[in-house]
């Protein structure tokens, strides 16, 4: 019974290929986690790193409370099921299952004088596992005398007989035929319920992922795309990749633009005549800068959220015309393929193709022109370049119009004192208000419209002066009076950032060094001078003794000697820098006073660094980073090592 935690896990192969990038995840006990993604996305590599079959380049993997980076697979208390079953062909099924138990060392006691399981115990456990999986009658057979499904059952038996903390399954069903796969899928789910252990399951099949997982990790090119429950992945994909990967038939994607006109939004689809005008209320969470009628976006809408029923078409505000190209009749439902471009053909995937899931009987014929109603509640919008959702569940920013007048910020009919740190000319600005900058306890009156729990955050929808604001930083039960955390706001004038949010982290450059140091060592009661090798972190040209934790991680991640050649990047938060007598030389430029907190703005080289301070600092100072919280990143490969 164990939790798993993966912190900043990287896998870089010796040839420089980065297979896994900054994998962060906490897996709770008894969860059924599925890693899913196209081949080559790093899902198997991650699983093999958890199993201990692959070295972890950087990062920290813990099972239970134990960091297992350097622990042998057999000591990690895990079991693994392989895609090709990996049964020992020269052993019978019984021996295959018993193999692990025969090798296992257990504490010596009266019953186990040689620290091994007794024959009776092994027999009992093998029979029990065989019973669970229904392979008792095959125990005497060799693997080659069995079918694929039976072999995979033996392989599962070999895993469960170890009673592991974590079960790892690497595409266990992809060698089976479709019917058997469905059956084994259910059996594995049943097994999970029965064994009550953590399962981690790798697959490229999104149906498997959706049906089995309690949480799913969608991966692509070594990066996590989204971690969420199957339902949330389906309903709230964070980017176009997840939206397109999850669900069959694939989500419809249309290119187009949006333009806000008062309380309405005008949507124009690219490469097509289609356009609709819909109420703005559907787009509260959308970033306003995308509603300018110019920025290219991608609309995503699932096949079942488009309807051709006359009633829906009549009542919907968003109706588009399309030309039917062909139908796929699946018995209980029909997929109608078409194109919203009357010249296009609905056979190939394009930004005008439309797939509609309909009921049993559809009397449309190829070539017909029909009308379809779009369900805008289920509309997803993605940026065309970044493919990130611009209609996120938790909006990152609120965009408002504001005016600065006499050191005060006026917005939405309210006013707030600007702290001394923010100084700008009077005039009209665009206010960039992050959703975590709206905090409880202030003088601004707000009306709480709704609150919604999303993951471990709560999203509050507020109304201030008739405008919708989103916040994630409110205290529960205190949403009526709010204040703005001025550190985080930005002011934009004519497209130019006049006031930037305070940078919370400072970045330094440097390397790790190895120096010989003469140290006094106690030896047989005498103090002797001895040359020892010590590691130092060179930060902006200044050497700091490297804490063992950091130097050890650097050396293991960057394969020994190379650790001293690679350029490093250090990240310190404004709170993790202290002023000391020796350290990185910095020159105080000014004091940024945010009212409640003060920061010294220092120049280090050509960089501006914010340092939290209470004293009035001036002139030349020296900074020392806090090595407990410092982040160390290998610069050219961008690997977070600490």
């Amino acid at each position, binding site marked *: 019974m164990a939790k798993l935690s993966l912190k900043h896990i990287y896998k870089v192969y010796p040839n420089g290929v980065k297979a896994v990038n900054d994998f962060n995840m906490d897996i709770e006990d008894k969860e059924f986690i599925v890693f899913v993604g196209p081949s080559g996305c790093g899902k198997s590599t991650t699983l093999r790193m958890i199993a201990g079959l692959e070295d972890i380049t950087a990062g920290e993997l813990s099972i239970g409370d134990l960091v297992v980076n350097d622990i042998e697979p057999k000591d990690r208390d895990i079991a693994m099921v392989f*895609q090709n079953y990996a*049964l020992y062909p020269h052993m019978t099924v019984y021996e295959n299952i018993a193999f692990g138990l025969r090798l296992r060392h257990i504490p010596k006691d009266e019953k186990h004088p040689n620290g091994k399981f007794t024959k009776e115990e092994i027999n009992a456990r093998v029979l029990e596992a065989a019973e669970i999986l229904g392979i008792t009658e095959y125990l005497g057979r060799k693997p080659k005398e069995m079918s694929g499904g039976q072999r995979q059952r033996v392989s599962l038996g*070999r895993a469960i007989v170890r009673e592991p903390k974590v079960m790892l399954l690497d595409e266990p069903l992809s060698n089976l035929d479709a019917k058997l796969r469905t059956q084994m899928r259910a059996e594995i789910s049943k097994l999970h319920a029965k064994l009550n252990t953590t399962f981690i399951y790798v697959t490229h099949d999104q149906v498997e992922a959706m049906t089995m997982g309690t949480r799913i990790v969608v991966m692509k090119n070594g990066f996590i795309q989204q971690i969420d429950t199957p339902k949330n992945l389906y309903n709230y994909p964070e980017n176009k990749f997840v939206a397109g990967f999850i669900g069959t038939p694939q989500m419809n994607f249309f290119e187009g633009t949006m333009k806000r006109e008062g309380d309405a939004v005008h949507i124009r689809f690219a490469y097509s005549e289609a356009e609709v005008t819909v109420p703005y209320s559907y787009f509260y969470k959308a970033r306003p800068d995308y509603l300018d009628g110019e920025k290219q976006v991608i609309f995503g809408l699932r096949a079942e959220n488009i309807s051709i029923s006359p009633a829906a078409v009549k009542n919907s505000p968003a109706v588009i015309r399309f030309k039917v190209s062909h139908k796929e009749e699946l018995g209980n439902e029909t997929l109608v393929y078409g194109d919203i471009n009357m010249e296009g053909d609905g056979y190939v995937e394009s930004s005008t193709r439309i797939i509609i899931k309909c009921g049993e009987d559809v009397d449309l014929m190829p070539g017909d022109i029909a009308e379809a109603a779009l369900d805008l509640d289920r509309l997803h919008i993605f940026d065309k370049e970044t493919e990130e959702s611009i209609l996120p569940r938790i909006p990152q920013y609120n965009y408002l119009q504001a005016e600065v007048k006499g050191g005060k910020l006026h917005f939405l009919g309210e006013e707030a004192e600007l702290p001394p740190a923010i100084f700008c000319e009077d005039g009209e600005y665009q206010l960039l208000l992050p959703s975590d900058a709206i905090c409880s306890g202030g003088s601004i009156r707000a009306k709480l419209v709704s609150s919604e729990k999303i993951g471990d955050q709560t999203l509050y929808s507020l109304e201030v002066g008739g405008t919708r604001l989103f916040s994630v930083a409110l205290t529960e039960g205190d949403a009526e009076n709010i204040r703005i955390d001025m550190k985080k706001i930005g002011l934009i004038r004519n497209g130019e950032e006049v006031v930037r949010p305070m940078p919370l982290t400072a970045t330094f450059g440097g390397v790790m060094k190895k120096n010989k140091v003469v140290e006094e060592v106690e030896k047989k009661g005498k103090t002797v001078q001895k040359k020892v090798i010590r590691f130092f972190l060179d930060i902006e040209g200044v050497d700091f003794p490297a804490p063992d934790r950091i130097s050890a991680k650097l050396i293991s991640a960057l394969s020994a000697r190379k650790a001293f050649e690679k350029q490093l990047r250090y990240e310190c938060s404004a709170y993790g820098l202290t002023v000391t007598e020796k350290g990185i030389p910095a020159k105080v430029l000014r004091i940024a006073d945010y009212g409640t907190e003060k920061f010294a703005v220092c120049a280090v080289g050509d960089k501006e660094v914010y340092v939290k301070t209470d004293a009035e600092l001036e002139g030349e100072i020296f900074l020392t980073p806090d090595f407990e919280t410092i982040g160390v990143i290998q610069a050219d490969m961008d690997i977070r090592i600490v």
Partner: protein
Amino acid sequence: MAKKFRSKKAVERGSNAVIYVILTVISVIWLIPFVFLILQSLRGEPGATTNYFFPKQWTFDNYIRLFKNQGISASTGEVVSTGSYKFMNWYGRTLLISVCVTVIQTAIVLVTSYALSRLRFKLRKPLMNLMLILGMFPGFMSMTAMYFLLQLLGLTQDMSIVGLILVYVGSSCMGYYICKGFFDTIPKSLDEAARIDGASRQMVFFKIILPLSKPIIIYTVLTAFMAPWGEYMFASLIANGDPSYWNVAVGLRDMIQREQLTAYSDSFQRFCAAAVVVSLPITILFFLLQRYYVEGVTGGSVKG
């Protein structure tokens, strides 16, 4: 009009007939030397050669004299002892060398191949290339150097058994190719499954890989045995000197020296008898072990 087709079976029968005729001719050509050898070893008439194929007198005397270390004198035609010229002695020495080499070489080849197949280390590729290139040089290039080195160590002539074993075993890991190729076909996931099951690398090798590798072990054993069994070049140099140091190849070669082959001597007949005796162990080994060649043992380990 419908085209007339020839029966598929008739076509097959016709082409099979042709193939079998060709194969028969080839095998007859191949077999003639062996048959000749056996016939000569059973020939009763004296003299080096005859101008007929089948002997007129049949006898086992050649074999008996061979084992008794006797021969018919080349000059007088009387049966005399061959002195230190002892076939059974050569046979024993060669067998000892070959068995030792087989054991050591098989072990070395298996572990080298497994390491090169499974472990990933920096010098793996360069090492494999180096071995490939070194293997391209004929072994006798190093012969003189090897002789002097072994002489320094006192491992020539009377100690030539040890010397020859060292020479034959010395470069044995270079024969890793075929064995590594075989290990490469055993899925790595078997190793991984065993390691997760709690096996150390050694246990994986001995408990999982070796039981699956019977065919390749047999192959390695056979090749390791055959090489020193018939080796002449190094043996003629390192085991030089008194005939009691020789191995069978050197001894047999000496039997058919010109001066031995006179009208009276039985040297050639004994040579043929010896050749038959020499070929026995390999033949027996091959018949015993060949079934493993065919047996596919990895069946069922992975998707099948």
